[in-house]
């Protein structure tokens, strides 16, 4: 950690190349990272463009003995499931579920709460810091997954009612039920995901604040928002991105696990969790291996790409500052 020295002169205020750009440049110089980014771009692209990319309606059944559980063919590249639905389309739509969920969690829990509260705690200190960190401590102790189970399971009826009300009374129409289920699982996940990120951000802010240029800026009376945005945020960003990318697989797993248990997104929305569950156990895997392979490999690749990317980022952003 940098030792505090006497403030020499104001030139310390001139930052070198902003750390985030340096991070990106270094990242792109790594082959493995580029491959990961490409894989993720394809995944996210297919997911976002699902209605245009998917070859068929993911819920359309071809309900005959011949058409159901068919292996990959020219017509169905990934084969069909037990109801004779096109698995490629279902995979693409399931990717959309994963992507929407992770993006929603990152924006609300990661960016808004994680970064925001972390900055606040680190910069303001005092009781604000104490309150935020204590809240985080409490939240990280609650068995999150079980709380989600309770809310998803016990409140299902209320959720159904709300979805129906929205469907009848608002412009949402048929989109209401999936949206409600989606908002709920995101809403339950968010209060818990920010804690880890906020801790990382906070300790980084504390470290930066001790550096000369910030002390100088403070001494010069630069306004708080300006100081945060111009000086502290750039210093926090690399480590924040490391934390975020390391957490991405974890975020996605929340939805995957809940859907596997049958407590995730609305049934009309394909999800990797419910597809993996439907692909069944050992015997079904033996008889129809493509069901499990096709529905699990895309999500494994997704997790792996994020893991590798996170690891590559750790290497780039100084390992010395990397905690936990």
């Amino acid at each position, binding site marked *: 950690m940098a030792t505090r020295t006497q403030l020499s002169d104001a030139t310390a205020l001139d930052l070198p190349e902003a750390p985030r750009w340096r991070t990106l440049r270094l990242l792109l110089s790594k082959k493995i990272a580029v491959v990961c980014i490409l894989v993720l771009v394809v995944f996210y692209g297919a997911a976002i463009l699902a209605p245009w990319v998917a070859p068929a309606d993911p819920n359309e059944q071809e*309900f*005959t003995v011949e058409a159901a559980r068919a292996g990959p063919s020219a017509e169905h590249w990934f084969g069909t499931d*037990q*109801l004779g639905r096109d698995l490629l389309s279902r995979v693409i739509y399931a990717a959309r579920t994963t992507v929407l969920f992770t993006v929603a969690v990152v924006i609300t829990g990661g960016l808004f709460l994680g970064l925001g509260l972390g900055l606040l705690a680190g910069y303001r200190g005092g009781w604000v810091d104490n309150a935020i960190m204590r809240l985080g401590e409490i939240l990280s102790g609650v068995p999150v997954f079980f709380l989600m189970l309770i809310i998803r399971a016990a409140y*299902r009826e209320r959720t*159904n009612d709300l979805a129906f009300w929205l469907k009848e009374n608002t412009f949402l129409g048929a989109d209401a039920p999936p949206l409600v289920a989606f908002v709920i699982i995101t809403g339950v996940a968010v209060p818990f995901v920010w804690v880890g990120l906020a801790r990382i951000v906070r300790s980084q802010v504390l470290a930066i604040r001790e550096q000369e240029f910030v002390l100088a800026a403070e001494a010069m009376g630069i306004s708080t928002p300006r100081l945060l945005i111009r000086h502290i945020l750039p210093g926090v960003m690399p480590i924040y991105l490391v934390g975020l990318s390391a957490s991405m697989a974890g975020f996605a797993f929340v939805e995957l696990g809940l859907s596997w248990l049958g407590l995730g997104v609305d*049934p009309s929305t394909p999800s990797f969790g419910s597809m993996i569950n439907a692909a069944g156990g050992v*015997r079904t895997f033996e*008889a129809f291996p493509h069901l499990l392979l096709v529905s699990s490999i895309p999500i494994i690749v997704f997790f792996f790409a994020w893991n590798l990317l996170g690891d590559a980022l750790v290497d780039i952003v100084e390992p010395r500052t990397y905690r936990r």
Partner: protein
Amino acid sequence: MSNRTLGLMMGAVALLIVAVAVVFVLVLAGGDGDDDGDTPASTTDRSDRDAGDDEGDARDSGGDTSDSGRSSGGICGENRLVTFGDDPATVFDPIQVGDASTAEYTAEIFGGLVSLNLDLEVVPDIAESWEISDDGRVYTFFLRDDVVFHNGRRVTADDVKYSLERAADPANFSPTVLDYLGDIVGVRDKFNGRADDISGVQVIDEYTLRIELDEPVSYFLQQLTYTVAYVVDQDQIEDDPNNWTRRPNGTGPFRVKTFRPLEEIVLIPNDRYHLGPPRVDEIVFSLSGGSLSTRFQNDEIHIAIVPAPELAGVLSGESELAEFYRPSPQLSISYLGMNLNEPPFDDPLVRQAFAHATNRQAVNEVLYFDAFIVADGILPPTLPGYNESISTYPYDPERAAELLAQSRYAGNMPRIVLTFSGTGGDPPDALQAYQQQWRDALGVEVEVEAIEWAAYLRELRRGTLQMYATGWIADYADPENFVGKLFSSDSRINHSNYENARVDALLEEAATLQDPEARYRLYHEAEQIIIDDAPIIPTFWAIRHYLVRECVQNWVDPGTIVPKYRFIEIDTSGE
């Protein structure tokens, strides 16, 4: 402080933390005896299990317990049946049992005046014989004098009276007593707190008991075979009112050796069983573990069950398991119910249209590999009184569309929700398939919704569900248990709010008749009327798909719960 010293200390502390954790865990795992010495059934420690005070002699014959599954002769090498089971939803208290999973064990541990044999006929158990008065209202039971509880105490008519009164005691909250014993004079009074005893049950002498009914009920003996009428030991219950169900002192062929929820139930024989003691040394019901068919294949268990969607994998051509396959038709039916009080199902034409639009055969073929029987009626084929002349609405999409067009709701179909009990996620594949069939044939979009089991039961009871997916398993083998319990207008479980005066009259008349053939005729007439009115769409009669090792002899699944394990023998000769 130098980095080195710091390192040493931190390392030591880390080791300490790990050590504390390990010790804590070991203490927790091994801490048997003191804190729950009175409930050995709930400990998980193996040493406790082996040293249990009810140790049978199975261990001696089987050799070392640690590799019992893989001893020399494989699983057929010892006289110990290892099978699967369901986690009991309640405890082994006969009057609390309302579910099939618990009833399976309760039927082996306890016994009542009468019992069902493997052909589902009423046979003597504690009662040796009985007389029925000419008006069908008074039953006199003559008890055997050699029936004892597991602890050796002789069973007398007083025990039977105590057990029935205990069932009706309002302090015991039995959910089943009114359904099965409510016809006995005085049971309702006792249950409602208006009487201290059941006036209709009289002890004549030590081994004679008289039971009087409000009305003649032709299936009363059938009802007496249900668990709520089983005999329990007053001394044990009064000595230990809170814990007696862990090791109940019943009169059945087996007693409980261990019960560990979610893990296993071990039963050992009652060697003094009056109808002939069991032939195996021990039965292990495994409530835990992975894929049953895989464990069967690896010789870990004698009996496995295969869920329908896995059948293709197990029975495909080259599978070595096909030779062990034993399908067993069940006394149960699954169906889709429609609520006659809710639009659009208050219009019979709509109900008939849905029935015609439902392609059950396709679902059976595509999803279940033909594992079930499409229900062409309500009474299952193995039920006494089954009649094959009954027929349901066949799959006919054109006719379905026609009927719908003639209905009151043609063109203004309200929202339809099909509710099922589940934890959510994807609805059962079958419901999704029906959804598609109705969409194709009728142009109607039915929403499928899961709600929690508890909430589902509540809504069924209130009769608010518009359309629901459910099933029924026979409590006793009589047509009344299906046609009467599900469709008489005053039944609590008539969830479709079905009401037909003719059906009610037929059911009432049938209840009073003694001659089976005459009764069955009335039930058949009622059954066909019900099907034509279409308050439900019968879907499948279940078949359970078992794998049974060849060394297990006299194994049979009669399709409902009857005491059956005492007949099983294991051929240890090693064929």
